């Protein structure tokens, strides 16, 4: 799998959040994107993760040109091939853990029973076998993030994007979470971390630095 990203981002008054950039990311890479806040690292992640359109340039995902796909088509790719983990977890409130994990499967037309079966299996693997029916407010931060990771993994995607995954966690829990990402990379998944913490970035094997929209290896 390879990606070529090259983008102008304009935000009303043509703010260049991301300067023209060319990148190739191979399958199974473990990449960190580092930079101070406002440097454009989230923008880069959003474009690579097909959440946002680049205003310019060309984006190839898995050998397919995805630059000008409709939102419905990119939604399908995100659903099947990309997993997201966010700093704020972004779990549905008042909704049981297994339902949160199974959410992407709703959009790929998987039956409720099958959703539950797969969610339970994945949650057990991440050490949350006892918390299947708990709602986010009944879970600790680390547990919530693990539910979010399970949700990112449920459709067995090729790429995992993690945007400051440890930002809301204490350092011990953060380390546990990072170990999960390490394991996923060992299993052959491409992991792309967006962070401003060196500690976190150290887990990755390839490091990208971004400053004022400019990307450097």
């Amino acid at each position, binding site marked *: 799998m390879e990606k070529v990203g090259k983008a102008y981002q304009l935000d009303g008054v043509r703010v260049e959040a991301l300067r023209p950039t060319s990148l190739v990311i191979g399958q199974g890479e473990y990449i960190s994107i580092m930079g101070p806040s406002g440097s454009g690292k989230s923008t880069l992640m959003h474009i690579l993760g097909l959440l946002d359109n680049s205003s310019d340039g060309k984006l190839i995902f898995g050998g397919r040109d995805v630059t000008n796909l409709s*939102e419905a088509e990119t939604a399908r790719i*995100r659903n099947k091939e990309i997993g997201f983990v966010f700093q704020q977890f*972004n779990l549905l*409130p008042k909704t049981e853990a297994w339902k949160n994990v199974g*959410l992407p499967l*709703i959009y790929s*037309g998987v039956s409720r029973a099958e959703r539950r079966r797969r969610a339970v299996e994945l949650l057990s693997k991440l050490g949350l076998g006892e918390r299947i029916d708990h709602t986010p407010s009944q879970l600790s931060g680390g547990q919530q993030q693990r539910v979010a990771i399970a949700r990112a993994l449920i459709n067995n995607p090729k790429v995992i994007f993690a945007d400051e995954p440890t930002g809301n966690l204490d350092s011990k829990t953060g380390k546990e979470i990072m170990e999960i990402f390490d394991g996923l990379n060992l299993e052959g998944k491409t992991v792309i971390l967006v962070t401003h913490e060196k500690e976190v970035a150290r887990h990755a094997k390839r490091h990208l630095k971004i400053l004022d929209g400019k990307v450097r290896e």
Partner: protein
Amino acid sequence: MDIISLFRVAVSSLLRNKSRSILTTLGIVIGVAAVITLVAIGDGLKKYVSGQFEGLGSNIIMVLPINMVDEEGRPMTLHGAPPVGGKTFIERDVREIKRIHQGIDNVIPQVQKLMKIKSGAKQKRVDVVGSSVEYQNVRSITMADGRFYNESEVGRSKKVAALGPTAARDLFPDGNYIGRTVYISSVGFEVVGVTDPRGGGGGFSGADLDDQIYVPITSLQKLIDSSGIDFIVVKAADSSQIEGVIASIKAYLGKTRNVDTFSVVDQRQLLGTVEAVIGTLTIGLSGIAAISLLVGGIGVMNMMLVTVTERTREIGLRKAVGATPRVILGQFLAESVILSLTGGLVGILIGAGGSLIINRFFPARISAAAVLLAFGVSAGVGIIFGILPARRAAKMSPVEALRYE
């Protein structure tokens, strides 16, 4: 994503905010219940009135000295008989009309006045109907007790009276009336009989058909010192003759009167005009009720707009994990449709229950059409008022939605 899981997701989203969902639904409940109840009252009234008209007897044509309907057959006045100030008919009109068409079975003159009636201690205002002997036959009156007045009593202006059951009960609570005397404007009339009930009320003049007193026309004319006839009732031999009879009566009367000073109408026409009035009234009233439904719909839209803003991050997340704009649109549309349909169903139940209760005091009738209409309208309200918030949700950019605080 199939419809069932779409609705399941929508329901669980609504249940996450129960009290707000219930309050929003309440607006629709009130609107639909009001529409159902008012339409039921209108329908019930219509059916009741037409029942009353059928009770008058069949193939009846009314000749009235007022212009009741305009050229299009719409009602001009609705106070009905007895006409005030109009030029009444005379004895000769009755005799002439009897001869002008072979389809005429019977012609009876009628004088009708609301008068003060006394019997011993009791006193009330009752419609006094003066007519000929044939009145009993034409109006299909049967006797519960005693007899109707007879030919010779009409000829000799005898002061005899037959009472409707309501009048009889009110004037003689002891049930003992035959041979007793009722005083009509202080003139004594001997009670000779009581009729069977003919129906609760709302007859031709809007009066209770059972709350009447029948006396020979000659006696009543003498009593009020006028030989005029308030209206003429014509009975056609059968329904196919009605058109011809009406035409020839109109032609006859047109010779001596202006066309806009009388009307010749059969029951159906009369019924039609009354029904038209009730129908207009019903539409007007349910129109007002529909405004509350509209307000309810705006409530739904308001709540959905709030919901969409509140759940911006959720929308962003759903999009990030693969929800297409159409799925998001469908989900929020499903939520508003579920809200308004639930409101519609509850409203129909409450409206139906309310109509049943009202029916104890006032005719009300729930029609399947009204129920279907209310159901359709509430679904429509959900879609119309849900589309704007749902589109707003569907159009959100996932990045901005996820960033929303």
